[in-house]
């Protein structure tokens, strides 16, 4: 059983949803980034969604763009990111780790080569923000060869054809978009409707985690009440890093409190 399946099974037994924070690897620097990710897991994050910094992140709003720029300013490369993930994987052998990145980083290395490096580092899943279902088959194939999950996005505007394709191809979890637009805490997610949840159930998609515009414990609770398997919070997490760039101790304690509160909201 993969780490996501194990996690969802354990959570379901405890009647809990998943809370998954996102941060950019290497933000604001290599060592602090390792400490940040450690803190997230120790504070109760059920899984991790980690970004590889990229020069042209078209699906990201200002908060995550700035995180990319900080990490690129530290000359963080994909190779550095895999090093950091290896460290995290050694310390936290059971936590599912997902990568969220852009296609050109994968193409530059070669799809197979890149997935091999990710698998070697201990990555469980890949979400490529600019690879829609229609372009996903070569990635899904390589992911399977490396026992990794290719995470697919279910947007609020998807049609039945898309839901069906997600159902046929999804594993690990499904990234359920809370709204249109780009990442950011400025605009709140809408909760999934009953119709949407029943479509996801009907097409047997991998457990849906709601993301985009999730920054408060009430939203996590509402998402799970509405039928999501949990929630992902990126920009709100990264905002805490940005607000405490000059006070690492405060940054880590604030992150820890944030994750504890968000996690508490997953318990029914």
């Amino acid at each position: 059983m993969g780490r996501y399946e194990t996690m969802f099974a354990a959570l379901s037994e405890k009647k809990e949803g998943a809370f998954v924070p996102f941060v950019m690897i290497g933000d604001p620097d290599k060592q602090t980034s390792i400490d940040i990710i450690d803190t997230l897991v120790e504070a109760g994050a059920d899984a991790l969604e980690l970004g590889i910094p990229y020069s042209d992140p078209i699906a990201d709003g200002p908060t995550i763009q700035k995180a990319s720029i900080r990490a690129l300013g530290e000359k963080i490369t994909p190779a550095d990111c895999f090093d950091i993930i290896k460290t995290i994987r050694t310390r936290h052998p059971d936590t599912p780790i997902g990568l969220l990145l852009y296609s050109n980083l994968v193409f530059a290395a070669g799809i197979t080569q890149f997935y091999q490096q990710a698998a070697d580092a201990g990555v469980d899943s890949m979400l490529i923000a600019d690879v829609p279902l229609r372009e996903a088959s070569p990635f899904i194939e390589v992911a399977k060869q490396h026992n990794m999950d290719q995470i697919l996005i279910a947007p609020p505007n998807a049609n039945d054809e898309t839901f069906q394709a997600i159902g046929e191809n999804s594993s690990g979890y499904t990234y359920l978009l809370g709204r249109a637009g780009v990442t950011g805490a400025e605009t709140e997610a809408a909760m999934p409707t009953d119709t949407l949840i029943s479509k996801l159930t009907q097409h047997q998609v991998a457990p849906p985690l709601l993301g985009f515009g999730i920054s408060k414990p009430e939203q996590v609770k509402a998402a799970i009440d509405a039928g999501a398997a949990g929630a992902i919070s990126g920009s709100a997490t990264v905002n805490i890093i940005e607000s405490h760039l000059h006070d690492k101790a405060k940054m880590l304690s604030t992150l820890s409190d944030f994750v504890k509160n968000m996690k508490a909201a997953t318990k029914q």
Partner: protein
Amino acid sequence: MNQLDKKFGEYGGMFVPELLIPALDQLEQAFIDAQQDESFQAEFMALLKDYAGRPTAMTLSRNLVSNPKVKLYLKREDLLHGGAHKTNQVLGQALLTKRMGKTEVIAETGAGQHGVATALACALLGLKARIYMGAKDVERQAPNVFRMRLMGAEVIPVDSGSGTLKDAVNEALRDWSANYDKAHYLLGTAAGPHPFPTIVREFHRMIGEETRAQMMEKEGRLPDAVVACVGGGSNAIGMFADFIEEPSVKLVGVEPAGKGLHTHEHGAAICTGSKGILHGTYSYIMQDKDGQIEESYSVSAGLDYPAVGPQHAHLHDTGRAEYVAITDDEALNAFQILARKEGIIPALESSHALAHALNMADEAEEDTIIVVNLSGRGDKDLAHVHSILGEK
């Protein structure tokens, strides 16, 4: 699934967030319908003729070429309303916007030419335009910013990243992800995700069609070569499209070599040959070994883009078209030669194509007819060129 082919050989595709797929599908459908709709075509043709001034002239140069075996023609897109070829496809996409029932237009612009074309079409057709422009470009291109605002467009400076064209495209895509219900993204070149490269080509293909008819009328035969500058590649694909199936016509694309291909300061994506994805399409791009996009450079803002349209990548790989690069200095030289010898001030972009055509003319040993796509006029470049020449 797509109805039109989304790839050119291995190039092209739709590498965008899942959210944008329905909007791209809607656009593809609207384009297919419009191509078959006589009333749409009639309106487009009427705008091109009565508003934009098509067909544009074909001028045989009198004094440019000393080689008696060569005739060098200029396809005068510089005479089109707006001052460049860009008006063609902007009118087409603005009509598609209305056809889709959308009321707003999002666009990106580098030097401001596509922004100006978008602003004029939106003013004419009653659409609300917001145009993303790198903060550095807003400063450098103040007259075009004023033109856009004068015609009622909102100009939004982009601070993120390098503050230039590629960041303006990123920001336009982000806006579109949130507002595709009521807004159309009016992309400015033959790049980006499918169906943009196909739509932009089809809405510019009259450049090549007119060239064919004008050559048949003036010379009784097709030209031996057509030459066009290539940034994203819209004017070049418009010139090439009608000649791709005519093997006797050589297709030549001219990329910006900037300060030289051996430096990092150029915009010659095809000539330096590295493949990847930028702005939704797989093509030749400028990147480092990890796949981070590099900044491009050219004296000509319209060619200053670190990627190229996917059909050009394919035409290059199949050998159907040839791609070369011309430096800033060579382009500036051609800019001055055309002004002095023919009384025409070309855009710096088009000066790249002219510079290479002049080299071809010098080297020709047989009777040769060359057509240069003079894609735009140089008014916008006067202050820039003045300051460069003043320094020398």
